[in-house]
């Protein structure tokens, strides 16, 4: 049954007409020997970009499940007691929106620097710092919101509304902290060797961050509506 195989074919780099739709196969193997990445045009999707969308869909699914849990629990409840949302949430919301805007500015500055359109990397670094600062303001602000509820005697198990409030905001903050970790990674890479930062890395981080902002707007709406 055994046979001798012909040797595998080797790739010849060929011009391609399609762009990044992934349908023609990924083009992983086109890094030139001198490792000058700027000389290479790669139309395939970047795993970091694809991965982040996939990850975000899982996160969206998780919050969809939590939302449906809230609806089912409310439907079964005789103990649904409305709580007043801590006003600091609205300030936190503004901080998160502002951080998204700052990150978008930073992303464009980074791209300009990488395209050699901008000589200094300081503006990009500044905007990344602003994003990070506003993100931290949001996280600390959420902590103050929890303190406010605690001061009113509303703890995690007090009633279903407070339970869902802590779960929704807690799970979201965990994800925001993950985003801050991603931002830190981007900043470290950008500072140590700006050229080693891939566009896809900062793009993926910013998609994630913007998604956290949108997700928070959605959660705030649900909390406001149901709790």
């Amino acid at each position, binding site marked *: *049954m*055994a*046979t*001798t*195989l*012909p040797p*595998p*074919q*080797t*790739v*010849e780099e060929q011009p391609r007409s399609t*762009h*990044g739709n*992934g*349908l*023609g*196969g*990924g*083009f*992983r*193997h*086109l*890094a030139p020997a001198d490792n000058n*990445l*700027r000389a*290479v*045009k*790669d*139309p*395939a*999707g*970047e*795993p970091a970009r*694809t*991965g982040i969308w*996939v*990850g975000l*869909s*899982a996160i969206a*699914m*998780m919050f969809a*499940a*939590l939302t449906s*849990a809230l609806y*089912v*629990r409310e439907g*079964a*409840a*005789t*103990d*649904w007691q409305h709580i007043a949302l801590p006003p600091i949430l609205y300030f936190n919301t503004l901080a998160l929106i502002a951080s998204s805007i700052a990150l978008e500015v930073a992303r464009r500055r980074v791209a300009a620097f990488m395209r050699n359109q901008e000589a200094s990397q300081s503006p990009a670094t500044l905007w990344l710092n602003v994003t990070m600062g506003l993100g931290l303001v949001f996280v600390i602000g959420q902590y103050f919101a929890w303190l406010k509820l605690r001061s009113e005697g509303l703890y*995690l*198990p007090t009633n*279903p509304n407070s*339970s869902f409030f802590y*779960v929704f905001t807690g*799970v979201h903050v965990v994800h925001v902290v993950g985003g801050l970790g991603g931002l830190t990674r981007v900043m470290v890479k950008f500072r140590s060797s700006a050229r080693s930062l*891939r*566009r*896809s890395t900062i793009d993926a981080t910013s998609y994630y961050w913007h998604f956290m902002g949108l997700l928070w707007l959605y959660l705030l709406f649900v909390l406001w509506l149901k709790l």
Partner: protein
Amino acid sequence: MAEGQVHVAHHGPPTSFIRKHVFSLDHKVIGKQYYGLALVAVFTGMVLSWIMRIHLVWPNSPIPGLQWLSKVGAPGGIVTPEYYLQLMTMHGTLMVFFVLTNAPFAAFGNYFLPIQIGAEDMAFPRFNMMSFWTTFVAFIILVAAFFVGDGPPLSGWTAYAPLSAVGGDSGPGEAVGQTLWGLSIFVFCIASLLGALNFIATTLDLRTKGMTLARMPIVSWAWFITSCISLLAFAVLLPACLLLILDRLAGTSFFIPSGLNVSDHLQPHQGGSPLLWQHLFWFFGHPEVYIAILPAIGIVSHILICNMRKPMLSHKAIIYCMMGIGFLSYMVWGHHMFLSGMNPFSALVFSFPTLMITIPATIMTLIWLGSLYGSNLRINSASLFCIGFISMFVSGGVSGFFLAQPSIDIYLHATYFVVGHFHMVMGVAAIMGVFAGTYFWFPKMTGRMMSETLGKWHFFLTLIGTYAIFMPFHYLGLAGNVRRYSAFTDDYLVPLVPVHKFITYAALFTGAAQLIFIFNLFYSRFKGAPAPDNPWECTSLEWSTPSSPPPFDNFGGQHLVVYHDPYQYGVKSSTGDYLMQTSPERAGETP
């Protein structure tokens, strides 16, 4: 298109022992680690099932040594009714999560998906490593439940609330054991999500030149579709486990209703919904069935085509059917809850898509059978297990028609009929797929052939044995034999005990037959005949690697180009009756 975006090789060859064999970034090593973990889990689960089967028919006979595992649960080696349920819980959890999810999907998928699409590795090798080791931690947490407190939980692998949520009042193992269970599954969900993310990004982005989606082997498609299902299913179980843990540890009342009195203790909770847990769990639980079976479907289709030496009647139809099953799998979770007290009209709503799932499943079966008809099938261990898979898939699937209908399910619910159904269609069928995959890919994974003689003995004994175990389950169910009982002392159940004895003998026999497989696996690993590069004359890319096992970057620095779909069999070519995917030659053009 932007410049500077190319994604070069992720990592160099491993140099240290730890990086090579323990915290490896190489998808092949990680695949083997998953396989090893699944092997440990499956034999643990099998031994648990032996203990249960022995206890069922000889409830008063001590099982030597069992008292060492649990003095309370098995005093003097005799299993208590509670400990029976604890063993059952661990059997189910180990088998569903750590065997049926890990072996066909994570193990083989990790090893062969990148190779089959011509990639050097997974898209995120570090995530991949984290994914395995997180799974390993989940396994350790789960197994630890045997050794702490009063043993593992007794709420079944479905951990139905509210008893799973209230703590120690609901029985032995429900204090620490159930918390460990929740934690283990929580961690397992994170691992599975990381894995699914990796599979999807790898499939979409790392295909080599010419490897269009349409040219991917069926089994790669199966892993891809499974990872999509996995991504959305585990994303629901994850928060469900979080809420369960909060109910247990933080005093919340997501799943625990008001006025619940357990073991004469009024539970300090109010307003929760036990049905909410069932909804969340089964929204994950039913897709989980397809997470187990779709990779096996892919493996079997891939191997069968190679051994039939001709294409399927339509391999694309199989891919579409898998997509259809994946889509429908999210609409049917309520069929596990016909008797849960939910609105009877919703039972009809869930019954309809459940019956619809039989359509793609039947189409696939007809394609397999129609393709096999008249083919000159090469009989070897792998192809035999494929036949075994089809047989089990059909035999177990047919009973699904009955269970999908609420009026019949009212009678059959929670009987051995259900146990027989899911063990055949989900458990044994998927395991048959894993066996087929093992016999088929072992030469590539190790560079050695497995013994065909032992493989065939293994197949026939396993096929006969599993039918002997699970077919009578259907009869027992029709006779009204309720599941989860630890002994049969009721008048109407006593006459069924001889059938149970037969099943117990069959289980011991079938389990013992697996030792042939284990022997074959380890003996062949070291002493098997050296494998040729392409022993099965198969066309897909894993058979184009320069060595067996493949080097760390899979293709030894060569970059493959794909010219064909992977099912160019029964053609005239310079290599014989098949064309490698990498061959630029056209069928019929013998140079």
